[in-house]
């Protein structure tokens, strides 16, 4: 039987005030296995811990029970004490005689009796404690960043600058994402591409960054430090190695279609780069619209290409990479404005979205930055900006606030007033939310210096009247209906999760909320981690954000990855599930109940009656297991057990407790 030392804490009068610690000590001394009992005024104090270490040596204790406060408070403390005394820290058991006893009971007799029971149960468990060693898993110091928007770019650069390899995967032909579509950024009004494109170039040039554009994630296997990812690189139709990016193919291509990048307000060719500063600056062939792919005739681009880089028959390539961490920065989509039939989006050409407006005022946009309304290319003399189209609308939209719309609409109105000196800008809003550095000032300036007119009220209808659009709303401040005639209406759509966010989440094995935004591990304390170790979040895939927040979160995610990569090995909690292979029948009913996909089948060979047989057993991945123990209950023959909370230990706690209170077997 193991030699147990029990250390009873008075916690000043916190425990001793209610529990007769001395009496408990007398009774504990008589328990089987207990060879040493000591009382301390404050066991957690320096002298308290010192005397534990002393006793361990003098009485060569093999197990230690500390009866004091909640283990949730001091378990780590006393484990360190044991370790310092050269004992395995998991030989500690704590008896919670404060929170669960002295603090909640008043009768000294009762409290003392209960305290003894609590200690006795701890002794019973301690006698069955085993030395546990934290597990170690190797770390592949290479990160995968999903999404090449500002979030992905920032995260990739920060990780790469920390000296680690990064694979940046972007679905579109170029990195840059939403920010590349923007003209200026609030509140400083500095040019979006001026601050973004250098970062894009850095990404492309960075020795530690491998760029896969026009590529998508297919499969993720493994666990923190050891993910195996499969990436599909879609056929560009262009040999990137040969292409010089001269752009001749694009000018010569006879096919013109709406540009996704310009959100329909501009055109592109069938072979194209989304925008001039695209990175990489290599075109792709859009097979749906390419004349050769449709009719088998044309091949003009091939003819004009001096680098001979055109590859009509190019096929997708599958790339497999091993990475140690994954940063998800897959961004967001915009709310479908046609949901609001009453606003006439898609019906009236001059009702456009904020993003379309960005393209219209963008110097490198289809109109070279001149604001002309789509219907007749006239300069609109008045523009109405409508906020919260989809946001904060339980009926037709989403309940949440998209956070960025107020500010960029303020920005749009300001920019419009700058460009059209005599124009009028109306902003229809529910509330103007300006929680950010210099945001409120920027908003104030828009009305004071630029005369933007704010009307508090959500428009009920927008309709055409001659060449004008009439916006009808109720001014909730004046409490009366208003009708404003304008030349153009700009709707600020809600930011919503990417259409395939849920699928992505399932591929990664991370959880997501009711909308489809990915869940952080903890809203306050672990905002960039996910519940799946080794997978981090950056940007709007986790929830609506503006650029500063996105960049901040990306940096945070990168820091987490760098911290992970700063170690050569990862130590894992030793209190995890383990399989007794001799017992395991290989039914694997433990597998479906594991929240962390930590259980897999494993084939073993053994000698049975002189012949070699192979069979399957369950095996636990200590890198994934978090020690919940669900599998142990699914396991009927007890082959699956949980270190630190073994079946044996729980049964002993029950038996020893009741053997005294309710003597069984007539003893």
């Amino acid at each position: 039987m193991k030699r147990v030392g029990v250390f009873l804490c008075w916690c000043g009068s916190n425990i001793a005030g209610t529990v007769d610690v001395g009496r408990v000590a007398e009774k504990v001394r008589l328990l089987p296995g207990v060879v040493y009992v000591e009382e301390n005024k404050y066991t957690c104090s320096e002298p308290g811990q010192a005397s534990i270490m002393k006793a361990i040596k003098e009485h060569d204790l093999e197990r230690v029970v500390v009866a004091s406060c909640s283990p949730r408070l001091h378990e780590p403390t006393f484990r360190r004490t044991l370790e310092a005394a050269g004992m395995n820290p998991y030989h500690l058991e704590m008896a919670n005689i404060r929170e669960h006893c002295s603090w909640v009971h008043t009768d000294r007799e009762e409290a003392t009796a209960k305290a003894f029971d609590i200690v006795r149960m701890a002794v019973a468990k301690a006698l069955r404690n085993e030395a546990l060693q934290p597990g170690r898993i190797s770390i592949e110091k290479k990160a995968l960043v999903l999404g090449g928007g500002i979030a992905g770019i920032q995260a990739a650069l920060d990780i790469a600058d920390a000296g680690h390899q990064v694979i940046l995967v972007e679905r579109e032909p170029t990195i840059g994402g939403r920010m590349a579509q923007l003209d200026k950024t609030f509140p400083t009004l500095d040019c979006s591409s001026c601050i973004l494109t250098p970062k894009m170039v850095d990404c492309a040039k960075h020795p530690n960054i491998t760029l896969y554009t026009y590529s998508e994630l297919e499969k993720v296997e493994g666990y923190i430090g050891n993910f195996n990812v499969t990436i599909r690189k879609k056929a560009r139709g262009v040999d990137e190695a040969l292409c010089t990016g001269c752009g001749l193919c694009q000018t010569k291509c006879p096919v013109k279609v709406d540009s996704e990048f310009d959100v329909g307000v501009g055109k592109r060719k069938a072979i194209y780069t989304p925008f001039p500063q695209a990175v990489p600056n290599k075109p792709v062939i859009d097979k749906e619209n390419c004349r050769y792919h449709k009719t088998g005739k044309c091949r003009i681009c091939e003819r004009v290409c001096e680098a001979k880089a055109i590859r009509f028959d190019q096929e997708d390539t599958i790339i497999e990479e091993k990475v140690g961490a994954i940063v998800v920065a897959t961004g967001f989509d915009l709310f479908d404005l046609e949901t609001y039939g009453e606003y006439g989006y898609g019906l009236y050409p001059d009702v456009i979205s904020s993003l379309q407006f960005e393209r219209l005022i963008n110097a490198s946009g289809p109109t070279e930055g001149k604001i002309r309304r789509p219907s007749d290319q006239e300069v609109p003399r008045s523009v109405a900006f409508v906020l919260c189209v989809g946001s904060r609308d339980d009926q037709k939209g989403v309940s949440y606030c998209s956070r960025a719309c107020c500010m960029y609409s303020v920005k749009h109105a300001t920019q419009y007033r700058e460009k059209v000196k005599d124009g009028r800008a109306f902003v229809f809003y529910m509330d103007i939310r300006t929680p950010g550095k210099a945001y409120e000032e920027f908003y104030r300036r828009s009305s004071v210096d630029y005369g933007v007119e704010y009307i508090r009220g959500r428009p009920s209808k927008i309709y055409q009247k001659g060449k004008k659009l009439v916006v009808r709303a109720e001014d909730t401040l004046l409490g009366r209906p208003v009708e404003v005639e304008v030349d153009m209406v700009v709707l600020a759509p809600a930011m919503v999760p990417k259409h395939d966010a849920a699928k992505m989440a399932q591929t990664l094995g991370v959880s997501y909320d009711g909308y489809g935004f990915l869940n952080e591990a903890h809203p306050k304390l672990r905002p960039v981690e996910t519940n799946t170790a080794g997978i981090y979040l950056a940007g709007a895939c986790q929830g609506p954000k503006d650029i500063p927040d996105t960049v901040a979160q990306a940096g945070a995610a990168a820091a987490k990855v760098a911290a992970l990569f700063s170690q050569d090995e990862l130590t894992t909690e030793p209190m995890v599930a383990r399989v007794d292979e001799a017992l395991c029948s290989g039914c694997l009913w433990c597998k479906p109940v594991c929240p962390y996909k930590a259980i897999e089948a494993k084939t073993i060979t053994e000698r049975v009656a002189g012949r070699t047989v192979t069979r399957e057993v369950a095996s636990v991945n200590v890198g994934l297991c978090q020690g919940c123990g669900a599998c142990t209950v699914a396991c009927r023959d007890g082959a699956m057990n949980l270190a630190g909370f073994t079946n044996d230990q729980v049964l002993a706690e029950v038996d020893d407790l009741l053997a005294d209170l309710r003597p069984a077997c007539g003893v």
Partner: protein
Amino acid sequence: MQPRKSGGFENMAESASRPEEARPAETRPAEEPGAGWEPVIVGFLCNWCSYAGADSAGTARMVHPPNVRVIRVPCSGRVNPRFILRAFQRGADGVLVSGCHPGDCHYSTGNYYARRRLVLLKRYLEYLGIDPRRFRTHWVSASEGQKFADIVREMTAEIKALGPGPKAKLGELV
């Protein structure tokens, strides 16, 4: 004590004639109902919510009866129904299992599996003739110290009224 009348094949005469003093005297009376009888309730609490909930009941000095003996488990999903029957078999008058609220499980789904198992178990124990009021299952979060204290108070009172647990009817192990 196993009644002399025994339809099984085991001979209980010995246990009848076994010396009383073999029992620890001071705990002996607690087994008998009536005056001085106090229920023993074994409580399986998940580490992250309910155990912490009991802690916060302590931190807030929410006084409640001393009848529950807590066994700490990582998750309500760790509680094997066998543990519960074992507790009754060895003389528990009541068993309490408490975990994180559905959706709040520290391990995301553990308590959902626990709920299926325990709802089934609750009905099954009643079927076997064990009063369902002796087996309670609850969701107590780390902040719900008051709720924990109330549960203990209620349960203790209820079981006091019910009297000694199944062991009284089941008899001795040998």
